[in-house]
């Protein structure tokens, strides 16, 4: 009974019940199933794993997934910042409507976005036919992949930057202005450093989502081997060929990338919270 003395005194009931249920639910639905990926990969042996992930087709898909995701996240960081700035700082007609619709990529099922983007950018589509008259193909090339990834990533940047921009203390800008700083200098030296952690968090969130994205990409990508196949598609392709070990090897690589990104995002968010806490 000596341990009882060390037990923290809790007024509220339900600690063991709710924590126990949380752990059980997560274990059964998420953790044990995910561990299957690593167990299956390990049972296939190192050599098989290496052969699976180093075939030219798989390497090309990793290259496209990571490259296009980086590019999309970078583009979204620029335009997401501009959009967040417009929504917070400026009066213009339709501002509230735009604010509500920014979350569309979260709400619109990825398959719907995928076929809509394909219809627009295919050689016979509105923009696709314009581009085709200049001998540019967008759909069914890596450019199509990039466009789909821009679509799904935009709200991550806007919604991460927007609240920080709203919380920004006006007094800082007033002080800088009263000391004679030009508007651009204020943005460059006062506002941007405060926004940077949030912007990087938004970038990382958009990147992480883009790397794993499937539904919105596969229609517009055309899925040409070595050219426009993304890594998640390679998993599906291997599964359809009943190459379970091969599919699992690619999944293991992607899971490790997800874990690393999750860690980076968590520390970025902690940094962001500290930065705001200091400036407030």
């Amino acid at each position: 009974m000596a341990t009882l003395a060390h037990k923290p005194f809790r007024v509220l009931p339900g600690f063991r019940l709710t924590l126990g249920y949380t752990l059980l639910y997560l274990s059964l639905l998420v953790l044990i199933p995910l561990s299957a990926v690593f167990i299956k990969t390990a049972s296939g042996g190192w050599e098989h794993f290496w052969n699976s992930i180093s075939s030219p087709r798989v390497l090309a898909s990793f290259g496209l997934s990571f490259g296009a995701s980086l590019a999309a996240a970078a583009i979204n960081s620029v335009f997401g910042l501009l959009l967040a700035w417009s929504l917070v700082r400026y009066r213009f007609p339709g501002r509230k409507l735009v604010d509500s619709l920014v979350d569309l990529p979260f709400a619109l099922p990825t398959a719907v976005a995928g076929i809509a983007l394909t219809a627009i950018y295919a050689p016979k589509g509105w923009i696709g036919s314009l581009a085709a008259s200049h001998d540019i193909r967008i759909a069914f090339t890596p450019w199509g992949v990039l466009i789909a990834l821009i679509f799904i990533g935009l709200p991550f940047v806007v919604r991460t930057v927007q609240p920080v921009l709203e919380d920004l203390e006006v007094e800082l800008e007033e002080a800088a202005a009263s000391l004679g700083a030009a508007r651009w200098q204020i943005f460059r030296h006062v506002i941007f450093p405060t926004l940077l952690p949030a912007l990087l968090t938004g970038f990382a969130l958009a990147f992480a989502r883009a790397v794993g994205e499937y539904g919105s990409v596969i229609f517009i990508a055309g899925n040409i081997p070595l050219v426009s196949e993304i890594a998640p598609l390679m998993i599906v392709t291997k599964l359809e060929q009943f190459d379970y070990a091969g599919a699992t090897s690619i999944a293991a690589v992607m899971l490790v990338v997800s874990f690393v990104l999750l860690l980076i995002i968590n520390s970025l968010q902690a940094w962001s919270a500290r930065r705001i806490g200091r400036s407030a």
Partner: protein
Amino acid sequence: MAATASALGQLAALPAPRHYEDNPATRDRAWVKWGVIGVSLAFFAGFLLLPLATVFIEALRRGWSVYLAAIVEPDALAAVRLTVLAAAVALPLNLVFGVAAAWAVAKFEFRGKQFLISLIDLPFSVSPVVAGLVYVLIFGAQGWFGTWFIDNDLKVVFAVPGIVLATVFVTVPFIARELIPLMQAQGKEEEEAAIVLGASGWQTFRHVTLPNIRWGLLYGVVLCNARAMGEFGAVSVVSGHIRGLTNTMPLQIEILYNEYQFAAAFAVASLLALLALLTLVLKTFIEWRAALAAREQREEEAQ
């Protein structure tokens, strides 16, 4: 992902844009203002509005009769039923989980709490395809229990249970991550007072906690539902694409599209696009109500 910086938790008194535009220190020049608005709205219109409009334009391209015929087609209706079923299982499960997880995390101190919060977010950062794959690895013919389920005439993968499981997996975090910051911000004094005054745990939750978190709860449910009904990658891997049996609406769209039945594909897609718009309307409404409730509470406390 550790998505959408939980909007409800952050609804403080937001300054209106006028606040910035009337202040000489924060006012941008007119050409800067309209330049930034122009560029960002062009980007917004090109990448977000255009695909949305395209869904409805393509759906109605061949007229209403084709549109309606595509929607009442038996396979399409079966897909709608399966989609609703998957969401109807995923929602209550993740609702109970979300409330339990938020209660444990927000009302108690324990070691590894941050780690637990990261674990709850995990399904957001896993590719949907990997989410589907894990259930194939466990329940598939080559999986851990593969032959046991088949021997007992239970099909999980390439059947409805697999689709439901995959849907539950990808929607695990939605309600929990909405409630955790909300309940952390509210603290536990009110609940402790209720317990000290003799209320039971359930009474305390029902009469003290629930009224405080109702908008956050609804918010999480709306977002969870949108994802449950729209999930594609995860269910695609476990479905097996059997028409009329294991096709959800997004999978039905894929099949129709790949068969060049574009009008029918966009007709089914338009239903999901309407659901997305409804989701955004509800979301905006809940944010407005929650802000209103927060303001009333502040005014009450000020008196």
